[in-house]
């Protein structure tokens, strides 16, 4: 274990050093500063914006979980995660298209409409799951209590 760890750490440091060498030999210094600001910005974005946001959404889902059945919550949560990731991928695509295509075969679709349609479908799935979950829970209230208190 100890030997393996030492080998991995040394190898990792060497590969990082090679990457740094490639960087300084192929990219001009003023451009490296540009990259540094982006790297720093990524860490700040993750630590200050993304993480608190995810914690907040998680807490809200946990709050919702008090009155929802497990399967409903799983459906809702999967839709939220998929919807968020699709937005992360497609919103830059919309921005890129707004910025200008080099030719009509690049970004050929109307991504705004498509994203709205897909997010709308996900929203519909969430609503259906919530409605079905609530209706079922009302019909069989004792079942819920008994299963969970076993």
């Amino acid at each position, binding site marked *: 274990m100890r030997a393996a760890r030492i080998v991995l750490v040394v190898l990792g*440091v060497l590969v*990082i050093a090679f990457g740094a060498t490639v960087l300084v030999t192929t990219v001009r210094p003023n451009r490296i500063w540009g990259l540094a600001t982006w790297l720093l910005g990524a860490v700040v974005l993750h630590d200050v914006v993304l993480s608190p946001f995810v914690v907040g959404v998680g807490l809200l889902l946990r709050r919702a979980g008090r009155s929802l059945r497990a399967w409903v919550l799983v459906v809702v949560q999967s839709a939220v995660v998929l919807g968020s990731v699709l937005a992360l991928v497609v919103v830059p695509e919309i921005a890129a298209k707004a910025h200008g295509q*080099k030719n009509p075969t*690049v*970004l050929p*679709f109307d991504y705004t409409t498509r994203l709205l349609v897909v997010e709308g479908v996900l929203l519909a799935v969430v609503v259906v799951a919530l409605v079905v979950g609530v209706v079922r829970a009302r019909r069989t209230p004792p079942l819920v209590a008994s299963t969970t208190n076993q």
Partner: protein
Amino acid sequence: MLRRLLLDARAAMASPNRNARSAVVWGRLLGVAFLVCFVTGVYSHLLQDPLPGMRFPTRPVQLYQFTQGLHITAGIAIIPLLLAKLNAVMPALAQVPPVRGVLHLLERLSIAVLVASALVQVATGLVNTYQWYPWPFPFRQVHNALAYVIIGSIVLHVGVQLRIIARYWRARDSYDAEGRFVVDPSVGSELLPPTGREAHPTAGASAAAVPTVGPYPRGLTGRVLRWVDGPAAPASGAQEAAPDAAPTGDGPSADATDAGRASRPSTEATTGRRELVARRGFVAGVTAATVGVVALTAGQSNRLLEPLNVFGARQRHVGPNALPVNRTARAAGVLASATAADWTLTVVGPDVTRSFSRAELVALGTDTAELPISCVEGWSQMASWRGVRMRDLLAAVQADPASSLRITSLERSGGYRVTEMGPEYAADPTTLVALEVNGATLDLDHGFPARVIAPGRPGVLQTKWIGKIEVIR
């Protein structure tokens, strides 16, 4: 003050999905995805900038279409996996104390390098496939250098965390019979649920904690967490009345700090079930996101997923000659030179130099080849090309078919105006100086009057609007 803040943050982050086991699970998948991207990326880089004497396989002809499609698809799959992994290890961000010594500081810095490089690499890589470059650095060189930084950082990270990885590699070593995460302080994870030694004895770790002790942090955080978990009451008899207790399978963060419930009768089973549902819910969410985002974009490089191509940056069969275009004739500045009536292709052999008009090229005898056009940006499409075999053209100037070539385009400028072709491609019977594609004359945007098409090479090396071919050795 800082300590208080960090401990509050840790309490808010506590979740069955944020422990050493989930870090190992998502880390493994992410590691594989990054490795796939690294290997396919280095292959693509070497194809474009070969080391001296390097030769490449020309069969299967779709090799590059496959490796680069995989590169982009795995890169897109990394987005949800990376977010899942960052979510799993989030409590390490608020570890107390923030720095324990020089080694620990170095380790945290190396993590910062890994996280920053991975985020920048994936984000710029994605936006690059949209042909938008809103950053103050050259994409290709930085993408190449960061790839090594990321892979090195991952190897370093695995070395640093190896004891934890080994300890929590298998599910059966990670959970007890009730399905609860097994805390093993001996391996030194920063993600383990807070134990009694930390200021806030939150549940999870010590399920048998005395229920009357306030398990939540004081102040606002505690109040928020209490609101989240509801009136779970120190009075243990009250639970019967709470029908809410459906196991909360939730997600990006869930409910390990359910302190009130930890005091419930049959605590182990309830906690175990709740943790299990929360974990499965999170896995379901990330799986849905990964499968979804890949399925809706991979149609640009995969025939089977073509009908599902909702968000791909390209659509197959869209464009002149039913083929997408990267660089147009207008962008390349060849509108006049490529349509000039006196265009000729000059072929420079070791001893003989000849110029061919389009009619003279056709007179050499044409052949067809089914070859894909495969872009570094990931999109690709099979096409049927017709033109003169490169080896026949070389024979016409008495050159060895297995020669290295320098091919010059009519383009005024651009990084790929002049490209080189190794002898393995020049001699290949499917390598053509193409004059037609998909049964029609090459469109001006596809390289009229003549372009190169060879098996297994990136699209940028399939030079369009060629003016000169030289044998260089």
